[in-house]
Structure formats: structure tokens, C-alpha cells
């Protein structure tokens, strides 16, 4: 089948100066990995060069992470070869990978919470039996100085912010003398400022001669930071090219395998009427920190109200207050159904809200924590919404199963069947199941928090379509998002939160990114010049 000597079929296409088969420092050839019956990687090729930042691009479930996990020793390939500097290597464990100078920073940090940064960094390293933490801390500080990191080696991990934890992960890999750094979606959890700092550090490391691989599905990051981009689709290598020779459209098409329209539809709202009125809501959380200050706004039917803000500025608390999960200290949240009298929601539990006939749908940020039960299958997760219905003591299993099957079919959920635990689905498919269930209850208010976080382009657009469809049906949609381009493209109005305060509501059709970005970071004082007005 394969031409002898060449090491297999040369797949995919190349554009510009193609680097395949050149003197790449790491070559992956014909790597195949199966999980049960699922083919995660199918005869995959990849080249990684020193002194270069490579972006590994692909949709969810395209096998990017699996491929890199095989390079870092977490998984072992079923077939294929790995060459480092033209010598074939066998990587059976993370330790083997370290010995070869390969280090991976996982999306879910692999850190022990109760240990300090320094303890985490030296974990598993060989050396004298007796620990000398002072020497370790000193070496960590030196590495931090070299590349411009800012962490305290003696701080416990559970006291750290997400970005600090990520820094610890990177330092950990550098401490082990890694020459090849693999970062799995490193920016997913970072604020724009933190992302900028990270990219600066990555460039420093590249200039130091290290090979950097960054797994991502955010095109603008590929364009911003990478030198070369390699694209995977459905577990196979599609092609690679220098980043400067390509553009977003081409990369998307290669990722998805067919042309994708990158425009978001925004139909004009039809007959918007106030549906949910939030007035002067203040909220203090369990730890006694005030999260919301005097928040007021109205969500209209047939309209998408976007909520923008730096993460942790009260978005979560606001949605949870509306859903009845957190109780505000003061203010009012009034639901105004069509042709019926208004109802006050504050003080009601989610179940009482439901019993009042108010259909509120909530797609929370934490899908598998608050939205779905990971170890239960799709049918049972559907039942979470319907288990109280019926008059007999027995559960109605049929209608949830039908609903599950319907969602799988309509939203193209990739799953072996409705009896598969949702934990085993990929992020995008989990989200489709959750959104599908929430809109199946025919809500009058739909709240989504970071609905497309961690989703690839294709899945994201499916979600936008679903949200738009709800809007057309007259649902009041509240969309909490982080990507300003999407917020501006999708929402009719955008409310900007800053430190728990409403810093203005702008029209999505006329708003610009700079203006919203400024509003997110700077609280307007008494003088509101051009703050809450249109830009």
C-alpha cells in the first residue's frame, strides 16, 4: 500500500513552502489511535520545528489533543512512528517524554492543589531522596526571571488564579529542561490581557530555540502568535502552511472540509415586548463579597440581549439570580408573560418558578457540573427536566428517549447512541445536548452562559443558529459571551458589565469593539460621555 522508503502516503495538501519531509526536529508518521470503536487519529502526520510556534488547528474531536497526548506519553499509539532528529523513539509514559525533552501543558491543569508551586514543579523528578525546597525555589525564581513569569514558588496552588496555575505548568515543563512545549488550548481560560502576556512569553521561548505547539481552534490566535499552522480534520492531517500565507477563510474551510459561511445572521426583532425586567438588583455571595450592584435592565421578547464583561464581573451571579439559584439582597426581577399579569421571581426556588408556569431555560457555564450529569446517558439527562411529570409512581422513559433521539438527529450530535454517558461525548456535542434539552421546553426566556466556550467553529455556528431560531419564535434570549466579535454580530443589544455594575447598554448594530472593550475595563463615573450612548 505505502510506497517503500517514503514512510507512507503523503497525505493532504501543502501550500507555499511546505515543510513536510524537511529536516523537522520531530516527525510523527502514520499515527493511529483508537478508543474502542472510535478512531481518534487515523494515519496522522505532523512535523514540529525548533524555533517555531506551530498552531495545531482543528474542530472539536478532530484528534488534536489525542495526537499530542501520544507525543507526551499519556496515550500510546496503536500504529505509527515518532522520529526525533531522525531517530525513531518510543514514548511509553510521560517520563519517557520528559527524557526526550517534550513537555505538555494540558487544558485541565495537572497540578496538585494542596502542594506549593515549587512542590508541583519538582513532582516526579529524580534526585536526592531528601528534599531541598529552598534550592528548588531558587531555581524556579531563576527560570521565572529568564522568561518573564511572575509566580511565587511557595504559594499553594489552591490560592492561585487560573493564569498563575498555567504559569506554574509552563515553568514545570521548563524546569524539566523541555525543548518542545505543547500547550492545549492555553487561552481558553485566560483574559485578553493574560493571553497577551502568555503570547509574549511564548515568543521569548521560541526565540530561545524551543519548539512550541499550541492547540487551538481560535483563528485569530493562530494568526496572532503562530509561525506555521497545521490542520487536522476527523483525526487526519489535512495540511500545513506558514501562517502568513493563509487566511481565516482558507483555514476554516480546511478544518471543516467544506466552505463555511462566517457570517452570523441577525434578523430584526419582531414586535419586541418587555419580557423580563430586572430592577436595582444587589447580590452578595456566600463569602460575603458583593457581586452585583444596582443592576437594572429589560430583556425583550424576540430579541437577543448580549452581556459582555471580563469574566467574573457578575455574569454568573446575574443569571443565577434570575434562575432562582442565588437570592439577591434587594431589587426586583419581574417576569411579564404575554397577556398575563406580571410575576415577581425573587425569593422563588427554581422549582417554584417552574410551577408558576414561567419557563426559564438556563444553559449554565459549567455544563457537566450544573447542566448535565456526566455519568448519565442522554435519555436520563432529558429526564432531569421531566421526571416529575406523570401521575403514577413510575417514570415515563419513552418521551425523554424520543426527545433525546430527536435532539441527536436534529442537532447532529455525534454519539454512539442515546444510552452513552454524556461525559464521553466531546465538548461541542455535550453542549448540543444541553441546549437541545433547554430549548425543547419551549422557553419564554433563554439564558446562555458562554454557550460556545470550547466549541469549534462548526458547532459554534450550529449554536448561533439555534439561538437565532429561538429569537424568531419570540423568546427573550440573554446571551453571556466572551468573544466581542460574536457579541457584536449576534446580539441586538449588548449590556456591558464591569465589576458587577451595568456600565451601559449599547446597540449591537452600531457598537464597535474598542468602545465595548473600554467599557468592560473602565467604570464610567458621574460623567457619562459616550459611555452608554452608541459609538
Amino acid at each position: 500500500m505505502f510506497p517503500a522508503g517514503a514512510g507512507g502516503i503523503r497525505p493532504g495538501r501543502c501550500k507555499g513552502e511546505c515543510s513536510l519531509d524537511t529536516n523537522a526536529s520531530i516527525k510523527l508518521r502514520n499515527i493511529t489511535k483508537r478508543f474502542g470503536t472510535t478512531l481518534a487519529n487515523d494515519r496522522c502526520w505532523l512535523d514540529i520545528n525548533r524555533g517555531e510556534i506551530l498552531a495545531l488547528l482543528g474542530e472539536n474531536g478532530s484528534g488534536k489533543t489525542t495526537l499530542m497526548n501520544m507525543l507526551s506519553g499519556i496515550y500510546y499509539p496503536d500504529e505509527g512512528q515518532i522520529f526525533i532528529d531522525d531517530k525513531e523513539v518510543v514514548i511509553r509514559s510521560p517520563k519517557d517524554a520528559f527524557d526526550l525533552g517534550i513537555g505538555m501543558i494540558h487544558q485541565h491543569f495537572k497540578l496538585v492543589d494542596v502542594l506549593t508551586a515549587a512542590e508541583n514543579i519538582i513532582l516526579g523528578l529524580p534526585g536526592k531522596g531528601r528534599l531541598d525546597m529552598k534550592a528548588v525555589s531558587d531555581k524556579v525564581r531563576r527560570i521565572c526571571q529568564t522568561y518573564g513569569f511572575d509566580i511565587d514558588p511557595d504559594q499553594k496552588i489552591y490560592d492561585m488564579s487560573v493564569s498563575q496555575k498555567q504559569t506554574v505548568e509552563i515553568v514545570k515543563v521548563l524546569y524539566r529542561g523541555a525543548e518542545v512545549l505543547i500547550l492545549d488550548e492555553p487561552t481558553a481560560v485566560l483574559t485578553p490581557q493574560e493571553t497577551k502576556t502568555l503570547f509574549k512569553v511564548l515568543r521569548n521561548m521560541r526565540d530561545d530555540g524551543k519548539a512550541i505547539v499550541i492547540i487551538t481552534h481560535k483563528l485569530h490566535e493562530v494568526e496572532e502568535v503562530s509561525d506555521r499552522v497545521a490542520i487536522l480534520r476527523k483525526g487526519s492531517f489535512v495540511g500545513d502552511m506558514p501562517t502568513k500565507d493563509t487566511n481565516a477563510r482558507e483555514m476554516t474551510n480546511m478544518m471543516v472540509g467544506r466552505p463555511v459561511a462566517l457570517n452570523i445572521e441577525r434578523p430584526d426583532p419582531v414586535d419586541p415586548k418587555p419580557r423580563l425586567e430586572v430592577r436595582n438588583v444587589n447580590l452578595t455571595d456566600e463569602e460575603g463579597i458583593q457581586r452585583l450592584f444596582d443592576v437594572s435592565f429589560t430583556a425583550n421578547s424576540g430579541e437577543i440581549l448580549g452581556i459582555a464583561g471580563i469574566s467574573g464581573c457578575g455574569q454568573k451571579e446575574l443569571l443565577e439570580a434570575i434562575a432562582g439559584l442565588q437570592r439577591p439582597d434587594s431589587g426586583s426581577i419581574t417576569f411579564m408573560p404575554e397577556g398575563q399579569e406580571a410575576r415577581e421571581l425573587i425569593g422563588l426556588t427554581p422549582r417554584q418558578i417552574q410551577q408558576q408556569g414561567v419557563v426559564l431555560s438556563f444553559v449554565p457555564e459549567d455544563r457537566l457540573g450544573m447542566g448535565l450529569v456526566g455519568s448519565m446517558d442522554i435519555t436520563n439527562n432529558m429526564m432531569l427536566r421531566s421526571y416529575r411529570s406523570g401521575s403514577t409512581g413510575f417514570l415515563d422513559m419513552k418521551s425523554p428517549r424520543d426527545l433525546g433521539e430527536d435532539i441527536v438527529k436534529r442537532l447532529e450530535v455525534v454519539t454512539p447512541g442515546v444510552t452513552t454517558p454524556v461525559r464521553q461525548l466531546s465538548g461541542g456535542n455535550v453542549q448540543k445536548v444541553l441546549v437541545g434539552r433547554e430549548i425543547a421546553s419551549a422557553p419564554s426566556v433563554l439564558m446562555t452562559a458562554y454557550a460556545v466556550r470550547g466549541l469549534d467553529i462548526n458547532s459554534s455556528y450550529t449554536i448561533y443558529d439555534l439561538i437565532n431560531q429561538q429569537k424568531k419564535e419570540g423568546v427573550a434570549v440573554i446571551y453571556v459571551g466572551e468573544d466581542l466579535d460574536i457579541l457584536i454580530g449576534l446580539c441586538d443589544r449588548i449590556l456591558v458589565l464591569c465589576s458587577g455594575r451595568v456600565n451601559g447598554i449599547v446597540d449591537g448594530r452600531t457598537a464597535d469593539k474598542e468602545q465595548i472593550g473600554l467599557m468592560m475595563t473602565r467604570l464610567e463615573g458621574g460623567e457619562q460621555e459616550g459611555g452608554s450612548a452608541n459609538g
Partner: protein
Amino acid sequence: MSILTAWINRAIWFGTVIMFASTGEIITEKSGNLNLGVPGVMFLGGFAGFAGAYYYENATANPSAAMIILIALLCGFAAGALGGLIYSVLTTTLRANQNVTGLALTIFGIGFANFFGVRVLGGGTSVKAAFARSVFATPIPGLSALGHVGNIFFSYGFMVYLAIIVALVVHWFMYSTRPGLNLRAVGENPATADAAGINVTRYKYAATCVGCGITGLGGVYYVLDYGYGTWSTANSIEALGWLAVALVIFATWKPRNIIWGAYLFGLLYWLYNYLPTLMGFSLPIYATQMFQTVPYVVTILVLIFISTKKKRENQGPAALGLSYFREER
């Protein structure tokens, strides 16, 4: 005063049994294995230690003290470690449920010891390893004669001091050495430890076997000193085994705390016998068992106290009780 001294003596004997057992269990639990087979392992260790010593002293005309100590400790440790090996194969390699496996190990250990104990008993209800008992109970010469002070601190067999040394060494190992750090990481977050290049399976096996071996020494001390060197059809090893599991929680998984915790549990456990006499009243029989629950009640109170403090360092290992499988998604 003599009653108080007797109470303290009793508490220290008692505490030494559970100090060994709990120190061993801490090592095991730090690797993420919640071994509820402690009573069974103590039975195994106690029986093997006794049987080894008993056969040795009956087979030899002039048994030597050093030899009998060596045989008893080796047999007890090996039998305990073997129990740990069974547990490790089932939970780490075959990924069986840890709670069920642990409880099964308790039943197995008790059954095994009593079944083969019949051979040692040879038809009677109890046999005594008199020489072994005398060796294990020999106090420190000279110091033990120093009146009350000597009585309280120096009137015990060598294993009382060995238990303290073992606990301190384990504490030092856990918090000041590289393998100790790795072990803690395995129990907290095996996936992280694995990604850091630590052989999770090997650590779990080693920690469980060594831990169970030390727990087995608790059984040896129970039979050869605390139980006056007698193997009988009736003993209270099981009750002490459960108390050792509680002591691990009480000590917030820190071997250092085991030392005073064990003696405190000893004082509380024997409260019913000494406090009434000390206070000058007598306790009705039915109330004694109620008084014996005091250590458990204290453990519950400590648990409540710890959970309100929300201090991460005082919680058990995060992955305690969970099997680890690298490729699980």
C-alpha cells in the same frame, strides 16, 4: 495516684496498638487507597507474629530474645503486607471497589486467623507464648524504677517506643523526602502524578503493602504484649482496628498527630474503667459500652470541626477511594 498511673499505662499500651495500625493506614491512604481492611490486616499480622514466636519458643530449648523479636516482627509484617498485596491486586490492578474490597479483607483476615488459629490452639480456647510475652514486655532497665515517672514513661516493652519512632520516621518521609512528596501527589491527584512521570501503580502497591505491614505490627503488639502473649478464640482486635481507621481521620492524615491521638484514644477508651474509681462512684455494667463509644464520638466532633474550618491541608487525600485508570476519558 496509682489509679491514674494505671490508667495512663493502659492508655499507652492500648495507644501503641492503634498507633502502629493508624501509621500504616496513613501510608496506605496517602496513596489514595482507602483500606477498610485494617482489622483484618491486624488479625493477619497478630496471628502470624504469634504463631511464629509460639512455634519458635516451643521448638527451641533456649530461645533467644533477639531471635524471637525478629521472627515475630518479620512474620507479622509479612502477613500484613500480604494482606496489602491482595488489596492492591484487587483495587489497583483489577480496579475493584475499594470499600467492598477493604471490608472483604477484614472478613478474610479475621476468618483466616481464626481458622488457622484452631491448629495453634490444638483444641483449647487459648494458648500462651510465655517467653515471647516476657521479651516483648521487658521494660527499659534502670529507668523504669524511677517511681511514678519511671512507671509512666519507661515501664513498657520496646514496641511502645518503636511505634513512636515509626510514626516520626513516616512523618519525616512524607513531608521531607522526594518519594514522600510523590506519594502524596499520587493520593491527591493520580492523573497529575502520572503526567509528572511518577509510576502510580508502583507507588500504590508499595505504599499499601508497607502500610499494611506496619498495621500488621499493631496486631503483633496486641497479641504479644497488650494481650499478655495469649492467642485465644476471643479478642478485641477488630474493635481496635476500626478505632485505628477513625484515628487516621482524627489525626487529619498526619503521622505526627497519630502519636498523641493514639494515647488520647487510649485514655478515652479506658475511661469507663478508671474515671468512676478515680471520682469515687461505680458505673453500672450497661453503661460501660456507652462509655467506650467516646473515641468515636470525639472523631465525629473532630470531623465536624475540620469541615467548618475548610482548611485544605486537613482534608484527606483528594483521590482517596477512587481507582485510577490512565486512559479513562
